[in-house]
């Protein structure tokens, strides 16, 4: 008699230690720069030191003569060699596209744009020789600021974009919103700057290309969040490489935060060089280059008007935003300040009328694209900062103002005024729980006591919504996306019952090798160790749209789930055949297919797997093998939400802010691995807090990035951040069968406003209502001095 297998512990919901960690903690991870190929040569890019110039001449003779140098190429060489411009992946009506070249041909438009590339036997020789490339620049006038770029008489950046306007975009109901504001008892007006940021993944971008004349195949190892997207765009549009002869491998990737989504000039050049020279070519960015050439994020200036009735209910919201896109359109740049921003301006509140318009400008700065949250942090900051300004003007408690406006739990699915339908939600409990955790009831009296002693304590609330699991394809297609946003997964069961999953999602810190294994283990009733997750290789994985927009669990995880369902169904039918039973009488439980009510009569998962590959006895209509591929295209985004509260102390003598406590109550739907969810939140919170307090990509008037190194740009350190107190509520998403929502960006979306609100709450005794982020000591100190002067 067959013994009953022990019931395996349920994996979904368990804080399983990460399966990818052993290689990372022993130094055995393989990042792109770690890949060694025999005969490899090294590329080094010569970059423009000026923001706008005509290239009169590039002289390469001295560089070519330098020992160890294989070749030097200019933009003209690449253009003549058949390298096309890099396209944008999202088109909007009347959008002006840019002709972005891997290496500039006759004009440079931002500091750091490549003007030549040197290839040499060693990285040292390549960088030495780069010094010998002579470029004759005819300098042209520069504009780095978006509002100035849109103004009269500004230097023109692209001939096809008069007035430097890339596009004008609107969403919502203008007339209805104007009427709502007209009828409001009070209209709160605020101008908000959402400063430019630099993603700063700790692993710099890198690419390594190798061409095999024998197979005519080009292989590119790349720091990519979406290798199939890179292959498609580089192959089909830029380099003219057939997809079946072009393999992109994104091995271990050291953080992305959006900066490793786009197709960049350097990987285009490196891929072309490897084929041209017949040797492998590697390029790894120096941090200096990362600052200048990784896509930047944010950079909005917004005028906000929010109307309220006498009871503190929001009646309407009007937003006018100028967004800086930089010198060229990066891959998804047009989507960020539009469909990922304007559509989120409803926040968690019942707002009956909204209108948002965006002017997107070209400037002589590094191109802007997705950065952790991508549009949604800008929207959240705008709403939540405005709510606090409103609370101040209406003389209402900021928690109470939010309470009065939250969308009720009985309103879901909730149709917003800006196109989205929120899938599920229950907002009030996150606010109430967070208030309780921080001790709000007693805080105001503590704050008053502290103020008497000259201490400035502040508390800031941010109730956020985010749209993640970016999809569905039909919708994003109708909005301008030049791609679908589904995800694929192949689940391959081997004859021994072990499982390989080929997922189109890509992990660069998110822990998919663990969480996806947890899904598989539970659904097949097999140990986690029997499951291998493969990602990041177009040579192994059928297709994939990659990881961004907090989509991997909701979209990629569901694709795996769908394949598992197909396999279980086939396994059940095969088991029924072997057991001489009707398929409907067979059930799968704990890794065993058995007759309902007779658990002893059954076959283990491994036995059925083997039978599928032996194929000695199969049902008539069944093919051998046990493998399934699925593409999941969800019906909607998912909408995580929550409330974050920061407590700070500002030293009025120095303007220095100390983060005292940080409380977060998030609802990200069902949770696969709570340890990983908390970890994602922690990192997200740090990133957003850093925008509130420290990080700022600052350009001077000549277009020089003055915060171009880690000495100048404020990536936070361990001693600047507090511990995070996190709790959760769980409202499953109805959009996918796992009920998951997404968590990679939630912390960043919420925390900037929470921290900024806390600092401004601390400054309230000085009569200060708003100061633009980042609230650096210098800015806070100056605001205090200005307030004191004004008060005199």
């Amino acid at each position: 008699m067959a013994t009953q297998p022990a019931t395996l512990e349920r994996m979904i919901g368990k804080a399983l230690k990460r399966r990818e960690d052993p290689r990372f903690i022993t130094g055995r991870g393989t990042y792109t720069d770690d890949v060694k190929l025999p005969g490899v040569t090294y590329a080094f890019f010569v970059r423009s030191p000026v923001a706008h110039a005509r290239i009169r001449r590039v002289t390469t003779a001295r560089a070519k003569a330098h020992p160890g140098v294989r070749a030097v190429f200019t933009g003209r060489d690449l253009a003549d060699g058949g390298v096309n411009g890099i396209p944008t992946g999202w088109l909007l009506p009347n959008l002006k596209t840019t002709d972005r070249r891997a290496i500039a041909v006759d004009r440079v438009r931002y500091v750091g744009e490549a003007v030549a590339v040197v290839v040499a036997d060693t990285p040292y020789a390549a960088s030495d020789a780069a010094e010998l490339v002579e470029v004759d620049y005819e300098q042209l006038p520069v504009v780095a600021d978006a509002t100035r770029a849109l103004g009269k008489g500004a230097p023109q950046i692209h001939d096809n974009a008069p007035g430097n306007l890339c596009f004008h975009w609107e969403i919502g109901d203008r007339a209805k919103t104007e009427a709502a504001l007209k009828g409001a008892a009070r209209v709160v007006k605020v101008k908000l700057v959402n400063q430019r940021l630099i993603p700063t993944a700790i692993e710099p971008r890198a690419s390594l290309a190798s061409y095999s004349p024998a197979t005519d195949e080009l292989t590119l190892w790349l720091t990519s969040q979406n290798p199939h997207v890179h292959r498609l765009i580089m192959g089909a549009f830029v380099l003219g490489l057939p997809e079946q002869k072009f393999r992109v491998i994104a091995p271990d990737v050291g953080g992305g935060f959006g900066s490793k989504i786009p197709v960049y000039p350097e990987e285009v050049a490196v891929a072309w060089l490897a084929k041209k020279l017949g040797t492998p070519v590697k390029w790894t960015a120096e941090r200096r280059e990362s600052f200048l050439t990784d896509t930047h994020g944010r950079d909005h200036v917004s005028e906000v008007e929010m109307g309220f009735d006498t009871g503190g209910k929001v009646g309407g919201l009007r937003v006018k935003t100028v967004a800086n896109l930089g010198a060229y359109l990066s891959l998804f740049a047009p989507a960020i300040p539009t469909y990922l921003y304007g559509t989120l301006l409803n926040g968690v509140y019942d707002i009956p009328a909204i209108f948002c318009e965006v002017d997107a400008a070209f400037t002589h700065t590094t191109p802007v694209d997705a950065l952790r949250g991508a549009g949604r942090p800008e929207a959240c900051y705008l709403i939540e900062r405005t709510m606090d300004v409103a609370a101040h003007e209406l003389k209402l408690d900021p928690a109470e103002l939010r309470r009065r406006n939250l969308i009720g739990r009985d309103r879901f699915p909730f149709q917003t005024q800006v196109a989205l339908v929120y899938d599920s939600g229950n907002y009030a409990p996150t606010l109430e729980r967070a208030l309780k955790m921080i001790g709000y009831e007693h805080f105001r009296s503590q704050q008053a006591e502290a103020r008497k002693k000259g201490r400035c304590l502040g508390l800031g609330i941010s109730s956020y919504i985010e749209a993640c699991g970016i999809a569905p394809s039909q919708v994003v297609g109708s909005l301008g996306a030049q791609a679908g946003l589904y995800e694929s997964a192949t689940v391959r069961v081997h004859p021994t019952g072990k499982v390989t999953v080929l997922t189109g999602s890509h992990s660069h810190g998110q822990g998919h090798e663990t969480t996806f294994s947890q899904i598989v283990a539970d659904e097949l009733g097999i140990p986690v160790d029997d499951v291998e997750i493969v990602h990041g290789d177009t040579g192994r994985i059928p297709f994939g749209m990659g990881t961004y927009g907090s989509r991997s669990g909701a979209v990629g995880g569901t694709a795996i789930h769908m394949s598992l369902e197909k396999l279980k169904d086939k396994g059940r039918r095969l088991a029924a055949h072997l057991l001489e039973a009707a398929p409907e009488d067979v059930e799968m439980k704990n890794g065993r297919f058995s007759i309902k009510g007779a658990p002893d009569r059954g076959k283990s998962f491994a036995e059925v797997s083997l039978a599928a590959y032996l194929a000695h006895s199969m049902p008539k209509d069944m093919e051998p093998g046990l493998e399934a591929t699925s593409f999941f295209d969800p019906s909607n985004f998912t909408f995580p939400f929550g409330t974050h509260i920061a407590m700070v102390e500002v030293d009025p003598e120095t303007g220095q802010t100390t983060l005292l406590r940080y409380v977060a109550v998030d609802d990200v739907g069902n949770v696969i691995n709570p340890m990983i969810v908390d970890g994602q939140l922690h990192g997200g919170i740090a990133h957003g807090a850093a925008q509130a307090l420290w990080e700022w990509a600052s350009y001077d008037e000549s277009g020089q990035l003055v915060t171009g190194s880690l000495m100048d740009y404020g990536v936070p350190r361990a001693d600047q951040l507090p511990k995070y107190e996190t709790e959760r509520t769980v409202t499953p998403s109805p959009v996918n069968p796992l009920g998951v929502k997404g968590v990679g960006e939630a912390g960043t979306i919420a925390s900037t406003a929470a921290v900024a609100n806390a600092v401004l709450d601390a400054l309230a005794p000085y009569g200060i209502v708003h100061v633009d982020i980042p609230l650096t000591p210098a800015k806070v100190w100056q605001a205090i001095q200005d307030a004191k002067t004004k008060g005199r």
Partner: protein
Amino acid sequence: MARITLKVNGTQHESEVEPRVLLVHYLRDVLGLTGTHVGCDTSQCGACTVMLDGRTVKACNVLAVQADGGEVTTIEGLARDGKLHPLQEGFWEEHGLQCGFCTPGMILSAWGLLQSNPHPDEHAIRLGLEGNLCRCTGYHNIVKAVQHAAKKLAESKSETAAPARAAGSR
């Protein structure tokens, strides 16, 4: 070219190097020890932190010739006899890493910290690691990982300590 001799993770190496070659490039490109990473060029990020003669150093800030005659431990040399170091265990147990890129440097810096201060409180850990940047974790679980290791090390004094002159890296 200069001839250097140094012991790395217990193995003696003798090499001819250009005098300008950085220790981190020597470790990665000559010895193939790619666990030590390069994250910046201004010695801020700490991803390249290794132990040199009992002190943590940023290997992007040391020339290979300066390490001549010295003894280096990298992340690859931290586990002994197939057994993870308590810091490696701690980072794994407490989810002290995500993308893993800063992790080797972070672990080596923490090792230096625990050698100079075996019982650091949270504040001391945060100060001790301020020479290392992490973009993924927000540091919360890194602090817990170091606390985990400190506790484990205190429980078992059998750890063969590196020379006592250790100091946190800057």
